């Protein structure tokens, strides 16, 4: 590396290798909120750079079935996203969907070798069972999945409607499981665990889900025309078409209630309403699901509960009572209290109850049952009261999310591995410190507001006729622009040695976000919870004491420059130009793509993650290694910061001064940063190349004249 002669007694110099490899980045709130601990910041950043395949690889590292999560994840990451404090959170789930579709997730081929003899039985093929099978196969165990229904997938198949999760996606994942050598037995209900052990299975994972709807406990609940949500969705999803009549009411406020209502609409019901006993604020269903349901014309009656059902003339008369909200209960939600004398009746053809579900355990399993018919397990080992029997998923937690089920499956696989390999199970530790703290109002003020870009969805008219997928996928430019909104929490700048810092206050004075501050003792601090990793201070710090927390970010420009200078030296096109181009604008949004595609041979591009990080030294080095011209191309108007262009021009000015003094024309270095439009910057660059070509020709002729 060209700066290898730099070392210094005062700082991190002592160990050159350590300087480039230590990782001080903090875990961002999105990752901390994700049950799977997916490296969200990383893949969002890769999408922002247009590196979709790499983004998919990061996603697949942390998630066995990313395509499924891309459709149905409840995205707690978005709730935790700190961009929410500025405008709206990053659309993480939609970006994941973009990455799996454009990155080619369905083409990924999964393989696994069998390296162990101990057979493992998985009872239930829901997300927890599938994840457990996936990871156990990866660990080399022979796995059999038993499924009572005719098709694999558990709630993914029989619970979630097709318009939310297309069946092809699920089928692809199931096929991949089979590809990995998982034995899958459908239509096989396991009634006794002893039988499984007799069949030679050494460990059993129970993941039978929570398919039994909870009863409302009101008069007339068993009348014909009343059906529970889980059964209704199961019948529809397995291909039956229950006849519902014209008017349907659904009781409940969770995702199952919304799913049932929207499914009823798609089966031809004219008037669908939802009865929910609390108000909208308490509704546990996903906000976007509620919105979409309202768009489709579903009527939600809040603060309403049924108290009696009567069947009369092939119709149901549902007596309801209005509620008001009282004191908060144990769950923190305000308890609904009936208002006296507020009863009213509604006539419906079908009443669907969806007020919760519980597991339904075959008694022969002989496992200890706890609250709400769930299986009792040790939270660390996932073991039940029976030796070799593990349990997870909704069967243990009660109805929960797909992601939580995947986590249970993954954990179960490693615990079963521990058990079969006779290892003591270790509690999992958080690898990295989690970034805490909110953005300060003064930081928020300085962050450019960029609205959240939602993926397109089908219009209510186009989607309610059948079970077509409601949400469409981003196009390339929208996805990249959405991903670029990420604030890169926890990977910002840090002062690597306070001793070496001269406390010159440069960082404090130039930070576009006013992040660095002086503490009471006069030491400068860069709070990790405020920095958004633009890198401006890093390229300006006179003591070179500020670095980015992630090793890749620190090395990136040096490595890329080194690489292209080597390639340029080996290339047959001798006169060459080096361009430092914004990686986001280059591949990501395509603003600078023309520089890459239309450039003539001899133009070498160093992609950089924001041109603010390009130092004057980098420019000089390119000249030293023989470049005839050097340019910097920023993404211009799309840049997240206002003063990048100013700083770049300062550095270019400094380099021009040196060029003049060593006898080179100052116009050999240029910055294209301001308000760059697609055509403008491309044309300007053409002119620049022509100019450099002219200078090169003149200097060659001059040399020949001299000799």
């Amino acid at each position, binding site marked *: 590396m060209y700066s290898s002669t730099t070392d210094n007694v005062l700082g991190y110099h002592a160990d050159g290798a350590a300087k480039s490899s230590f990782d001080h980045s903090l875990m961002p709130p999105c990752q901390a909120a994700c049950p799977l601990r997916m490296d969200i910041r990383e893949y969002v950043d890769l999408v922002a750079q247009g590196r979709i395949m790499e983004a998919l690889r990061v996603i697949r590292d942390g998630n066995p079935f990313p395509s499924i999560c891309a459709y149905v994840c409840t995205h707690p990451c978005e709730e935790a996203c700190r961009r929410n404090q500025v405008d709206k959170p990053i659309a993480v789930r939609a970006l994941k969907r973009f990455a799996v579709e454009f990155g080619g997730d369905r083409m990924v081929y999964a393989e696994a070798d069998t390296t162990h003899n101990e057979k493992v039985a998985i009872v239930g093929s829901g997300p927890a069972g599938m994840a457990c099978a996936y990871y156990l196969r990866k660990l080399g165990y022979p796995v059999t999945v038993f499924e009572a229904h005719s098709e694999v997938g558990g709630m993914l198949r029989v619970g979630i409607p097709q318009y939310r999760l297309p069946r092809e996606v699920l089928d692809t994942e199931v096929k991949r499981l089979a590809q990995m050598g998982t034995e899958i037995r459908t239509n096989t209900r396991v009634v006794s665990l002893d039988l499984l052990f007799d069949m030679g299975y050494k460990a059993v994972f129970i993941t039978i889900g929570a398919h039994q709807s909870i009863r409302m406990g009101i008069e007339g609940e068993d009348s014909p025309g009343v059906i529970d949500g889980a059964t209704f969705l199961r019948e529809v999803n397995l291909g039956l078409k229950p006849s519902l009549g014209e008017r349907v009411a659904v009781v409940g406020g969770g995702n199952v209630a919304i799913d049932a209502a929207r499914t009823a609409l798609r089966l031809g019901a004219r008037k669908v309403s939802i009865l929910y006993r609390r108000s909208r604020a308490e509704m546990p269903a996903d906000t976007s699901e509620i919105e979409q349901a309202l768009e489709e014309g579903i009527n939600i009656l809040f603060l309403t509960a049924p108290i009696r059902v009567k069947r009369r003339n092939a119709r149901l008369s549902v007596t309801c009572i209005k509620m008001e909200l009282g004191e908060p209960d144990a769950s923190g939600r305000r308890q609904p209290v009936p208002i006296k004398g507020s009863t009213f009746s509604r006539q419906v053809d079908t009443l669907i109850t969806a007020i919760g579900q519980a597991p339904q355990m075959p008694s022969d399993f002989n496992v200890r049952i706890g609250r709400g018919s769930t299986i009792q397990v040790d939270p660390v080992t996932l073991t039940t009261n029976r030796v070799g029997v593990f349990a997870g998923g909704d069967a243990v937690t009660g109805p929960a999310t797909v992601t939580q089920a995947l986590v249970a499956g993954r954990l179960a696989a490693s615990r079963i591995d521990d058990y079969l390999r006779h290892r003591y199970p270790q509690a999992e530790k958080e690898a990295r410190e989690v970034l805490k703290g909110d953005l300060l109002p003064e930081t928020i003020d300085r962050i450019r507001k960029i609205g959240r870009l939602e993926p397109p969805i089908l219009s209510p008219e186009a989607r309610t006729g059948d079970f077509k997928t409601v949400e469409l996928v981003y196009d390339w430019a929208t996805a990249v622009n959405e991903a670029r909104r990420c604030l890169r929490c926890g990977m910002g700048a840090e002062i690597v040695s306070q001793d070496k810092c001269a406390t*010159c206050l440069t960082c404090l004075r130039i930070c576009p976000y006013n992040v660095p501050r002086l503490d009471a003792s006069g030491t400068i601090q860069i709070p990790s919870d405020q920095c958004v990793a633009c890198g401006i201070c890093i390229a300006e710090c*006179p003591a070179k004491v500020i670095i980015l927390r992630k090793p890749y970010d620190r090395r990136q420009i040096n490595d890329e420059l080194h690489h292209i200078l080597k390639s340029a030296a080996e290339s047959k096109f001798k006169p060459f130009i080096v361009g430092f181009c914004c990686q986001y604008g280059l591949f990501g949004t395509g603003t600078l793509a023309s520089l890459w595609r239309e450039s003539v041979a001899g133009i070498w591009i160093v992609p950089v993650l924001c041109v603010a990080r390009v130092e004057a030294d980098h420019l000089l080095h390119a*000249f030293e290694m023989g470049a005839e011209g050097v340019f910097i191309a920023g993404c211009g108007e799309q840049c997240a910061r206002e003063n990048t262009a100013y700083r770049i021009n300062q550095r270019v000015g400094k380099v021009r001064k040196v060029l003049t003094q060593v006898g080179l024309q100052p116009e050999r270095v240029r910055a294209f940063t301001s308000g760059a439009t697609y055509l403008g910057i491309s044309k300007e660059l053409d002119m620049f190349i022509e100019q450099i070509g002219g200078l090169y020709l003149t200097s060659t002729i001059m040399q020949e004249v001299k000799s």
Partner: protein
Amino acid sequence: MIVAEQKNLEEIRRMIDPYQRVLLLGCGTCMTVCDAGGEREVSFLHSALRLAQAKSGDGIHSFLEYTVKRQCDPEFIDLIADKVSEVDAILSLGCGIGVQALAERFPDMSVLPGVNTSFMGMAKESGVWDERCAACGDCRLEETAGICPITRCTKGILNGPCAGTKNGKCEASKDMDCAWILIYKRLERLQQLEKMRRFYPPRNFRAIPRPKRITSKVSSTGEENG
């Protein structure tokens, strides 16, 4: 803080011309703060010198770059003794004091100044420094409301303003404030205008001979004090 600016590249190249191996030595204190000779500037100069060498085609120099915490203390300089033994000259990006401290510590080594030490001053804003003190050794700031006429008046007069003041600016430059007008305004604000009405006799230059030395050692009888 001491403020300096880096010499231009041509002058530096001329100075180092006779020497093959040159140590570019930065200083981690004032020179870092005033952007003249901290680690970044050392590295930038290094790149510039190598570029110049590559362009002129006479590549005889090899460079080593380094930055010490403070060049004006012998203990810090001692830390680089082994590096100095490998070179033919040191180009110091420390202030004039640093250059001399190095020269004193390494009697057989050529030490070259890489910066022009300019003044003692303060940062006005990011990247702008202003002179504030002339180190005259006879501070009168109490009488002039904390504004130094010796440094900030072009003439350095003690009884101002002179007739060259116009609209609060100095006749030498329209962009420069007249120090004595500033003093007047500040005294007025502090309600100490009577200090304006006094005559200040000429300074006694004999009382402050150069070079000066200050010692914090307590002198005891019979001991020489420098």
